[in-house]
């Protein structure tokens, strides 16, 4: 028997309603990446993490437990969990990620901030006031709750006078750019992914990486947001010989990750299929979404070296060792 769908969605929805995130993490853990960067609070243009990169290590730790209990009697635990979760945040008692995993994901955000600074972009950050976008709740079809939450997120931007939002992952980009405008009256935020901003700013490389990597496009960038050229332009200018796998660009194959919250074993099978395609082309692969990154990494083991695109970009555009100001 698979995980009880209704109860699992119920826990995620209760968390968003009561704690503003599907999987609540402490403000300290959500904002740690920015410590020492001296980013101003708020301002007209903000870097909005949407908390995806910070949440992934926690989701990965939890799904390890989930994948183990799929098809077992322990599914009843989740049923009990929903009632308890309404009163106590049960996520706090679930598996915790390792320090090194948290640091690796925080490093990606630091790299992105460094790249934007290198491109001359002035931006701030909302720190602990930043809220999760609600992407998973949207996917699961809990639309009434999403409407209320989106308004909260929007109000926070408005409170700080934000006009331009720079996003770091495809799911958050899609929520703020394509989903929110239909939910919020008078929505007027200008939303761009940092990849788009870097290309627009014509960021110049400081050195050439001279390596090849197969590109894994995110379905959401490719088929929802039409972000297809920016990643290729930035990588090519960085001296990366970009290899295309079977199913690339508009026809990219999903990493399987979106199945993770309800059907972890299906997510794993999806990732395996994609890894087989990528390995045929190169032993280096580049991703641009935290969900793709974690899901493919789990399936790849040491057969494939996977990097988030920001890891390559920071090395090329920020000079030797990626030495930009924010680092």
């Amino acid at each position, binding site marked *: 028997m*698979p995980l009880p*769908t209704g109860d699992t969605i119920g826990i995620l929805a209760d968390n968003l309603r009561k704690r503003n995130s599907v999987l609540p993490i402490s403000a300290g853990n959500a904002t740690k990446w920015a410590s020492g960067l001296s980013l101003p609070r708020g301002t007209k243009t903000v870097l909005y993490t949407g908390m995806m990169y910070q949440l992934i290590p926690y989701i990965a730790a939890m799904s390890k437990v989930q994948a183990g209990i799929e098809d077992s009697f322990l599914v009843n635990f989740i049923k009990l969990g929903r009632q308890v979760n309404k009163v106590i945040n049960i996520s706090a008692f679930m598996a915790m990620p390792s320090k090194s995993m948290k640091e690796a994901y925080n490093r990606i955000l630091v790299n992105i901030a460094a790249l934007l600074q290198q491109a001359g972009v002035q931006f701030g950050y909302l720190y602990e006031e930043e809220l999760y976008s609600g992407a998973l709740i949207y996917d699961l*079809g809990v639309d009434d709750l999403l409407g209320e939450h989106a308004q909260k997120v929007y109000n926070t931007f408005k409170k700080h006078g934000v006009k331009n939002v720079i996003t770091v992952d495809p799911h958050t980009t899609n929520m703020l750019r394509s989903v929110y405008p239909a939910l919020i009256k008078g929505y007027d935020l200008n939303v761009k992914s940092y990849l788009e901003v870097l290309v627009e700013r014509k960021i110049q490389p400081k050195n050439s990486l001279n390596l090849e990597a197969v590109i894994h496009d995110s379905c959401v960038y490719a088929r929802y947001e039409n972000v297809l050229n920016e990643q290729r332009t930035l990588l090519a200018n960085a001296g990366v010989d970009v290899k295309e796998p079977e199913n690339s660009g508009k*026809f990219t194959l*999903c990493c399987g990750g*979106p199945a993770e919250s309800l059907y972890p074993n*299906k997510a794993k099978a999806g990732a395996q299929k994609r890894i087989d395609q990528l390995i045929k082309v190169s032993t280096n692969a580049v991703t641009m979404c935290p969900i793709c990154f974690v899901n493919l990494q789990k399936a790849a083991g040491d057969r494939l070296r996977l990097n988030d695109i920001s890891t390559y970009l920071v090395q090329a555009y920020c000079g030797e060792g990626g030495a930009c100001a924010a680092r």
Partner: protein
Amino acid sequence: MALVNPEFVDAVSRGEFNASACMNCGVCSAVCPMGIELLPRKLFRYVLLGIEDRVLDNTETIYSCLLCKMCEANCPARVRIAENVRYLRYYINKKVFKL
């Protein structure tokens, strides 16, 4: 014998359940990374016909969809498959899971 609920499509769609253009060509099933045989050909047809029981029998399939739009990118009739799946989830969340 399946029970027919003529109001089913309106309850699911909240405006537009974009599936009537489907010509049952099978491309969506052929390219689906999850091998979701039922979506959207039969499942969406059940919605249009008001056969609610058959739809609800396929809850797992409906929540297994990745919303990756590989099917949509290949669909000759431009059916908005992912949005339809989300509509079905919204309906089931309310009706079955009481969320």
